[in-house]
């Protein structure tokens, strides 16, 4: 894999631009396939947009964009239509699918609901989710020159196979550290196959064709340097990256006093420059929903707003509003427990599971630790991707809330899952190692604050 760095030490912004230029250049070179690995918040969708615009507006080609979900397709379509008002785009969805209101007002965004409504020939950019592409009638339109798969690490290979032949050239863009494709059924038959149908398509492609051109984005635009220090070694040991922002450029500060709260020491730590802190409640095996923890998360959100928190980001200073807060949980039951506690005026706090938070960001994030209150540590809760998503959604600061004793739990439940001959990947062990790494680094850096 080529990590795009330079002999001279360029600024992170220069590194980011060089990386994008290198990706765009692969299309001029006619590379049949490119795998682009990206750390969190590195501007993946921006690269997807630029690849599509270059294909349509510069090279006069036909470009198809494949996303994993409808929501992702809506987001890409909105960004393209609003960012490039002089170009025309087509959103391809199934018949009867309700579209969000924000997509209705673009004069340069057509909606195709049937294969025959997709531009039959000539330059075009058509956006659809992978399933829609798969079920479309390819005889109704000319083949595409370029296929860009966004969030490719969420797309299992068996779904990619159904659309791979739709274009001459392919670019697979994704974050290798996030949650792998969700395949609920039994997969033992293919488990030893590194290019099995359940494997994320960029990994399967490289397993099948090791000479695939690999590039990586070297800069995270979202994460601050302090967070990168924790996230990169734990979740991306093979993908070095830096933060675009300078140390101290993004900050949280409070402006007014409020009644003292047990969460104040954690807020003070963040005000002093920490971007990742962990609040620890007294140890307790609580089961899936820990009501005290849900209370703490809501109390933290309220206290931040009550103390007149301000966020400095990209040269702007903004007063913290509930809409700038996100809460990420492991389970839907935890999401509901937090939501039902949110007081009036806090409806805009975005509370979701890690799976649904992929691709999203907020200035301030609150995280319900997936291992908190558990008596054991199974593969779902150890999953590195799930924790990585939770700890990499913030632009300024992230508060992790959990029960004390997570490190002890991890040491008690060292992974014992089956090893599979023929496969180097052991997700349970990788998750366990990442969890232990994060926990120890936070402790060593004095980022663990007991809640009293």
């Amino acid at each position: 894999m080529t990590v795009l760095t330079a002999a001279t030490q360029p600024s992170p912004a220069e590194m980011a631009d060089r990386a994008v230029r290198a990706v765009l250049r692969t299309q001029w070179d006619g590379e049949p396939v490119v795998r682009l690995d990206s750390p969190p918040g590195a501007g993946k969708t921006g690269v997807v947009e630029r690849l599509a615009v270059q294909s349509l507006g510069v090279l006069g080609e036909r470009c198809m964009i494949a996303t994993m979900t409808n929501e992702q397709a809506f987001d890409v379509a909105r960004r393209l239509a609003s960012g490039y008002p002089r170009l025309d785009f087509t959103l391809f969805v199934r018949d009867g699918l309700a579209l969000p209101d924000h997509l209705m007002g673009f004069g340069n965004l057509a909606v195709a609901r049937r294969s025959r409504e997709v531009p039959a020939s000539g330059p075009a950019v058509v956006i659809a989710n992978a399933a829609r592409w798969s079920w479309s009638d390819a005889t109704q339109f000319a083949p595409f020159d370029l296929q860009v798969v966004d969030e490719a690490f969420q797309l299992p290979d068996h779904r990619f196979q159904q659309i791979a032949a739709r274009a001459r050239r392919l670019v697979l863009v994704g974050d290798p550290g996030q949650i792998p494709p969700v395949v609920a059924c039994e997969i033992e038959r293919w488990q030893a196959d590194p290019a099995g149908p359940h494997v994320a398509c960029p990994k399967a492609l490289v397993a099948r064709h090791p000479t695939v051109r690999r590039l990586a984005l070297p800069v995270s635009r979202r994460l601050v340097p302090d967070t990168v220090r924790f996230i990169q070694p734990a979740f991306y040991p093979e993908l070095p990256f830096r933060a675009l922002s300078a140390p101290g450029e993004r900050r949280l500060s409070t402006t007014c006093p409020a009644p003292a709260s047990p969460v104040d020491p954690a807020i003070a730590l963040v005000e002093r420059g920490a971007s990742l802190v962990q609040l620890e409640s007294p140890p307790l095996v609580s089961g899936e929903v820990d009501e005290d923890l849900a209370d703490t998360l809501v109390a933290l959100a309220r206290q931040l707003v009550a103390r007149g928190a301000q966020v400095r980001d990209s040269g702007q200073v903004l007063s913290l509003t509930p809409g700038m807060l996100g809460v990420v949980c492991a389970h839907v039951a935890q999401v509901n427990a937090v939501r039902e506690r949110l007081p009036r005026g806090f409806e805009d706090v975005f509370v979701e599971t890690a799976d649904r938070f992929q691709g999203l960001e907020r200035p301030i994030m609150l995280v319900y630790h997936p291992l908190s209150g558990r008596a054991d540590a199974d593969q779902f809760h150890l999953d590195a991707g799930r924790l990585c998503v939770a700890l990499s959604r913030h632009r300024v600061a992230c508060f992790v809330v959990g029960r004390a004793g997570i490190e002890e739990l991890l040491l008690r439940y060292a992974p014992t899952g089956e090893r599979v001959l023929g496969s180097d990947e052991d997700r349970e062990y990788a998750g366990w190692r990442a969890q232990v790494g994060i926990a120890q680094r936070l402790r060593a850096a004095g980022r663990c604050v007991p809640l009293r």
Partner: protein
Amino acid sequence: MSTNLDLLARLLAYRDGRAQRRASHCQVAIHPEARVVCPLAMAGEDTTIHIVACGPIGGPPRVLCVPDPRKRDPQFDLFARLGADWARWFEGCRRAGTYPQLWVSSGAAASHLDVLADRLRYNRLRPDVKRFGELLSYATGRLPIAGQQALITATGALARHWATGQQAGEDEHLGAVLAWIEPPAGVPVMEAVAAAELEPMGAKTDPAFDEHTLEPLVRAYTDAARSGAPTAVLDRHAANVQAALEPVVLRIYAATQRAIAVLQAAGLPPLLDLPALEAREAAEFESFVRVLGRDRGWPLALRDGPKAAAFGLATREDALQTAGAAVLLGDRVARAGGRLAGRVVVGTVESPASVRVAPYRVVHRFELVSRQPVLHVRVRDELCRADDGRLRVLVERVQRRGAETRLSLRLVTGQRAVGLLAAGMELEFVAGRPNWDAIWRVRGHLKTALAARPWTHTPGALPAPTPVATTPPPADPLALVEALR
């Protein structure tokens, strides 16, 4: 949350010293022509059958035994005899348009058959042994697929319908599970379970039995064979081995038969979709023998290529979804679990309203107010009414206020078929109902979509790069793109 329901049932079972029913409907078909098969392997020889008891439901077993399964020819003879019997049975099932169903005692026995099938279906020495491996492969290949009826483990079938007062992993011992379901009078259940666990119920005999009883008998046979003893002597040694093993395998056979009898006697009405599950099994069996070429002697693949894997995974995903929906809607306990887990949305209709948006188009909306603690519902989800799938709604808004969730719903289909909804009605919605025809549509689609294998999924070199322009690429392609903003 449905796991909470399981936990509650287990706690009740523990308190009462008796298994608790956890299903309102029978979720497993008991095929009248099914066979109960109980194989025992020799310790350390996972691809052997030392003795096997096989018979019809409610009937006596046929017992086949070899004195030393490490001896290839007698072992192959055993496989061939079993295979010849099964070939007739499979052919009968096919002629009757049904499917062969095997019952084994536990997951361990099923795994043993799986290993055997993998090993034997590529046998190059004996076509009859290979054929047995292929027949076995049908059942073992279906095992991982949700809702399959081809290979049923007695422990699994009982666990679907009863909760015991022990850990789920301990439910893999058939004798222990039966002790929970039918605890002997006057004996504390834990003692009954402990006693039951002394009897092997999987695919292996007890190590102490192996050491002290079986090994001397097998050694006596092999020594006699090596020394060229007459047939009568060898037969006597072989009979001694069988006499030692037969009680063990017959106890497993009897317990498996007992499990089936318990299930039959439970009086559970069959799941509404159970005939559909059986029809699916019959269709899969026909597909196995005909479409996949067993009739023509085509070999089963050891590994799947990308296309076969895509078909296989699609089948498994569809089965999981369809069988899951069938149980969720057809079994009252499963539905209660679905409500707890938020997979079934239950609420009261409020503010139904119809708005004419065009001369011939009316949009019907209403709110559903739910007090469920957990809901798996998000904006733009489509739900259908649990009891009448014709009514479909689109979730336009989800508002959580304290313990109450208010869903704003728009009718998508069914306003004429089902009728308009009135305020105060209590309704249940689910993500989908079982669609038994979907898999044929999916397979038809895959057949078209994967007709030509893309180069990305073909081994070999990558296609050569083909520059898109004859001129060199620009120095700054990013600037060209940004200029288009």
